[in-house]
């Protein structure tokens, strides 16, 4: 198959697979898979910008997705006025203390000569700043979390439309990526991996434990939606008319309508990001990035600022992951910090990029679709397979029950195998990077 035909054929195959699910299982399920495919593709795109363009090994996707989720809460949840009046000042004071400490450290480092005295001064500033911040922070947090703990107990958000949070999530992720990149990008490649792994765990720990901000493991539910609710649709005359005209069941149709609206929104975001990524890849900037990736020394000799360019791509890729994270929380309608799992949110995305084709945006998008589809469908398929394989044992046989119950974990093994097979036999992925010769 020629290279130019490859991508359309593979995408058509993907569409057919989703259609098969629609016809044989249900359209609602098919659209639910499609929605998560779209979000996964965006995350894969973000990882591809980092890995495929610049060769940065970021295993902190989970953290950036969680930042997006936090952004969704902070932007769209209804503000809790009582909590603000209970602890807003305290939080503001502790924020002032933190900023003051940072300014003090910067000043000390600028004014004092290097040496032991400066080290002690910095340590003292940190100690004083930390004590002040905690002094203001602790009672404020207690006061906030005491406000109606069963329902709120947190500050709430701004009450803006949740789609705004997609951009905010991207910006917040970019900000965090800037800090991490400043620290870790000067180091060797696997140190970046460990640093990003660590920071993503910490971000999720913060989301789980800082109840005043995210309600922690109590979850924030009932976030506003950018699309109508099924219940409202089922009572809207225009909708019922339309449904009746097509002879559909209103309940089923409303669910499909909602999922389809999400799919259109997500697809629009994906297309915009994909278009931007393609533009970037084929610009002089993209060529520069690839030259840095392929031969760092030569690029540096040509006067390219390697570290700064890497920081740029790291921020861009992380921002894309942040956008996807906010979209995911939007789709769920709730923020549940307990569900962030590195296998699902970081390493699965990596499988997508590697299988799809690192360095090729279309490839990563395809990888996002394909791997998510396999990931979802592997669970029922695995259970069915175990069921068939252990048919010979009795219905209540403990071995058979264990096998069926544990079948869900086989998909981890499957993902590992897919990754290893792809790396070994098709290291360039399904849609390889385009290389122009001459």
């Amino acid at each position, binding site marked *: 198959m020629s290279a130019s035909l490859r991508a359309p054929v593979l995408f058509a195959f993907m569409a057919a697979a989703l259609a098969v699910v629609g016809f044989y299982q249900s359209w609602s399920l098919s659209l639910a898979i499609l929605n998560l495919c779209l979000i996964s593709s965006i995350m894969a795109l973000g990882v591809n910008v980092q890995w495929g363009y610049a*060769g940065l*090994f970021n*295993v902190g996707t989970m953290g950036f997705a969680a930042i997006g989720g936090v952004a969704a809460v902070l932007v769209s949840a209804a503000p809790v006025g009582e909590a603000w009046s209970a602890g807003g000042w305290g939080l503001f004071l502790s924020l002032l203390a933190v900023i003051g400490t940072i300014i003090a450290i910067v000043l000390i480092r600028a004014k004092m000569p290097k040496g032991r005295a400066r080290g002690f001064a910095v340590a003292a500033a940190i100690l004083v700043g930390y004590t002040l911040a905690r002094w203001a922070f*602790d009672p404020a947090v207690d006061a906030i979390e005491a406000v109606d703990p069963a329902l709120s107990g947190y500050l709430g958000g701004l009450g803006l439309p949740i789609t705004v949070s997609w951009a905010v999530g991207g910006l917040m992720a970019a900000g965090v990526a800037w800090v991490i990149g400043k*620290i*870790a990008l000067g*180091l*060797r*490649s*696997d*140190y970046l*991996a*460990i*640093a990003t*792994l*660590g*920071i993503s*765990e*910490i971000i999720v*720990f913060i989301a*789980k*434990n800082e109840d005043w901000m995210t309600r922690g493991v109590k979850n924030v539910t009932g976030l506003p939606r950018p699309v109508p609710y099924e219940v409202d649709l089922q009572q809207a005359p225009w909708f019922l008319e339309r449904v009746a005209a097509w002879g559909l069941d209103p309940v089923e149709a409303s669910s499909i309508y909602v999922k389809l609206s999400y799919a259109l929104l997500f697809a629009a975001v994906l297309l915009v990001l994909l278009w931007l990524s393609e533009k970037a890849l084929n610009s002089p900037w993209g060529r520069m990035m690839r030259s840095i990736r392929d031969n760092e020394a030569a690029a540096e000799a040509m006067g390219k600022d390697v570290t700064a360019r890497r920081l740029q791509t790291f921020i861009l890729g992380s921002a894309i992951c942040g956008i996807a994270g906010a979209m995911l929380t939007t789709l769920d309608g709730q923020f549940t910090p307990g569900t962030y799992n*590195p*296998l699902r949110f970081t*390493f699965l995305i*990596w*499988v997508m990029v*590697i299988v799809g084709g690192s360095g090729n945006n279309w490839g990563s998008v395809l990888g996002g679709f394909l791997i998510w589809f396999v990931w979802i469908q592997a669970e029922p398929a695995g259970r069915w397979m175990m069921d068939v394989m252990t048919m010979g044992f009795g219905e209540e046989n403990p071995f058979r029950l264990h096998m069926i119950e*544990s079948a869900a*974990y*086989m*998909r*981890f*093994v*499957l*993902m*590992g*195998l897919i*990754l*290893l097979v792809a*790396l*070994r036999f098709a290291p360039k992925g399904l849609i390889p990077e385009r290389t122009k010769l001459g």
Partner: protein
Amino acid sequence: MTDILNAFVVFANFVLVPGAAYGAQLALGALGITLVYGVLRFSNFAHGDTMAFGAMVTVLVTWWMQGHGVSLGLLPTALLALPFGIAATALFVLATDRVVYRFYRRQRSAPVIFVIVSVGVMFIMNGVVRFIIGPDDQNFADGARFLISAGDFRRLTGLEEGLAIKSTALLTLVVALVVMAALFWFLQKTRMGKAMRAYADNEDLALLSGVNPDRVVMVAWILVAALATVAGVLYGLDKTFKPFTYFQLLLPMFAAAIVGGIGNPVGAILGGFVIAYSEVAVTYAYKRFLGHLLPESLAPESLVQLLGTEYKFAVSFIILVVVLLIRPTGILRGKTI
């Protein structure tokens, strides 16, 4: 005077003793990571799950032995099952090396490719462990629970505070010491150990001197399997066996290996204890400790805890970042590849 003694006992009970056991566990894990890094030249993301795998086999054999009435008396039965766990893990990692890693070694792939490959291996081990034993906590500890319990200690010394020493804590330290001594003896004194160090130091030179690379790699993997299994089992005995916790240990273990100087075994041990003690010391609430030392009027009302225990993994990360910024090669100079 008793106040000072009481304060010391509280500190020992909550910081010194648990930190020592945790440090030994981290050190064993970090030794495995550092060995892979030194000999095979990549950061092994599957190491946490290798520990989980080894511990899982040991747990299963332990259960089987317990079912047949085998017991070590005061010591946990898991010690008897440990060799089986090591053997199974060694076979597993050797098989992975043969099927997966060897190909990339022959191709002389970039280290980052090895890291991605190890992510694939991690997925598989993760799935296998959960498939066989499930994702939940498993209890396999038996034998004496405490060397000395808090109550006994109070009765013996007449102090207000008690010092409880879990038998698993002492066991961890003793086993870790034995394993480390054996490892260093092997690396320093045996022909194979010297060959391994030569290979880690300069591959081409070692090959020229007639070192057989396949044997070095094989022995290294067996050592890694043994270290990982011992670390995993000790951690499981001391705390609890749960597959996901081993993945989470990856960060502190990497931090320990890098902080100590990656590729340097002494550094890995040092790093393990540095990380463990910092974690425990920063997340410990000093209220009772200070309560004994300070006069009544000054006794703190708050917990005097620098960071909540839920952030203990953040501590290892912060230490890692600080060391990387100030001294990227680690406390004892490790290698940079």
